[in-house]
C-alpha cells in the first residue's frame, strides 16, 4: 500500500504541477486573443486545440501498449531526462538571476500587441489568425501536458490518476482565468517549474535505469531518493551561482 502511494503520489503531483504551469501559459495567450478579438475565436481555437490533443491521445494511447515494456521505459526515461533537466536547468538559472523570470503579464502584453499589429495589417482575416494563435497555444502547451502524463504513468497503469491530476489542474486554471479575466501572473511559476523539473528528472533516471536493467534498491522509493538528490544539487547550484539582484526561491 505504502509502496503504491510512493509511486502514485509523485506521479499525480508531477502531472498536476506540470499541467498547472502549462495551463497558465496557454491561458495567457487565449486571454490575449479574447481581449483583442473576443471570446468566439479564442474559445473556438482553444476547443479545436483540445480536440487535436484528444485525437493524439486516442491514437497514441493504444499504440504505446504494443511497445515492449523495457523499450518503452528506456525511450520514455531518456525523453523525461531531457525534458525534466531542461526545465530544472532553466529554473535554476532563473532562481539565481542568470536569466530573467518568465513574466505572464509581459507575455500577455506581447501577445496582445502582436495581435493588434496583425489586426492593423489583415483586418479581414483577423478572426482566423486570432483563433489560430489560441489553437497553437493550446496544442503546444497541451502536448507538453500529454507527454508528461503519458511519461510519468507509462507501464504502471497510472494513466487515469495522472490524467485526473492534469485535468484537475487545467480546469482549475481555466476556472480561475474565467473568473479573474487576467493572466495568472502571481502563480509562482518558476518554483513550480523547479519542483516539476526535479520530479521529472527523478522519474527519468528511474525509468532509464529500469530500461537498462537496473534493480533500484528500495524499488519505487528510489524515485524519492533521486528527487531528493536533484533537489539538493539544484538548490546548491542556485546558492553557488546566485547573482546579487536575484529573487529568493520561495
Amino acid at each position, binding site marked *: 500500500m505504502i509502496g503504491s502511494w510512493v509511486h502514485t503520489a509523485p506521479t499525480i503531483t508531477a502531472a498536476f504541477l506540470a499541467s498547472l504551469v502549462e495551463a497558465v501559459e496557454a491561458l495567457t495567450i487565449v486571454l490575449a486573443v479574447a481581449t483583442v478579438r473576443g471570446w468566439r475565436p479564442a474559445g473556438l481555437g482553444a476547443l479545436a486545440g483540445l480536440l487535436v490533443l484528444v485525437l493524439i491521445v486516442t491514437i497514441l494511447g493504444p499504440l504505446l501498449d504494443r511497445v515492449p515494456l523495457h523499450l518503452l521505459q528506456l525511450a520514455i526515461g*531518456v*525523453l523525461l*531526462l*531531457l*525534458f525534466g*533537466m*531542461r526545465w*530544472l*536547468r*532553466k529554473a*535554476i*538559472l532563473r532562481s*539565481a538571476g*542568470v536569466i530573467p523570470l518568465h513574466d505572464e503579464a509581459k507575455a500577455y502584453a506581447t501577445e496582445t500587441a502582436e495581435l493588434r499589429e496583425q489586426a492593423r495589417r489583415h483586418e479581414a482575416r483577423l478572426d482566423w489568425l486570432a483563433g489560430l494563435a489560441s489553437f497553437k497555444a493550446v496544442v*503546444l502547451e497541451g*502536448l*507538453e501536458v500529454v*507527454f508528461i502524463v503519458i511519461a510519468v504513468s507509462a507501464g504502471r497503469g497510472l494513466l487515469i490518476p495522472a490524467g485526473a491530476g492534469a485535468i484537475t489542474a487545467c480546469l482549475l486554471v481555466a476556472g480561475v482565468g474565467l473568473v479573474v479575466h487576467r493572466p495568472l501572473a502571481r502563480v509562482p511559476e518558476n518554483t513550480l517549474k523547479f519542483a516539476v523539473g526535479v520530479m521529472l*528528472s527523478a522519474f*527519468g*533516471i528511474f525509468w*532509464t*535505469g529500469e530500461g*537498462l*536493467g*537496473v*534493480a*533500484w*534498491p528500495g524499488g519505487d522509493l528510489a524515485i524519492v531518493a*533521486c528527487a531528493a*538528490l*536533484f533537489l539538493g*544539487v*539544484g538548490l*546548491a*547550484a542556485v546558492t*553557488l*551561482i546566485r*547573482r546579487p539582484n536575484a529573487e529568493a526561491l520561495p
Partner: protein
Amino acid sequence: MNSLWAVLRELAGLFIDDGSLVLQIVVVILCASISSILLPDIPLAAGGILLFGCLGALFVNVKTTARR
C-alpha cells in the same frame, strides 16, 4: 513545408534547449548502457553512473552558463 518545419522545431524544443546539456546527458546514458552490458552482475553500476552523471552534468552546465 515551413509550417511543418516550425512544428518539428517546436517539438524538438520541448526536449532540447541547451545543446551541450543534451550532449552530456546522451554521453552519460551511453556510459550507463555500456556499463550495463559489460557489468551485468553489478546492475547498480549503471544506475550510479546514470544518477551521478546527470547530476554532475546539470551542475557543471549551470555553473558554466552562469560564468558566461
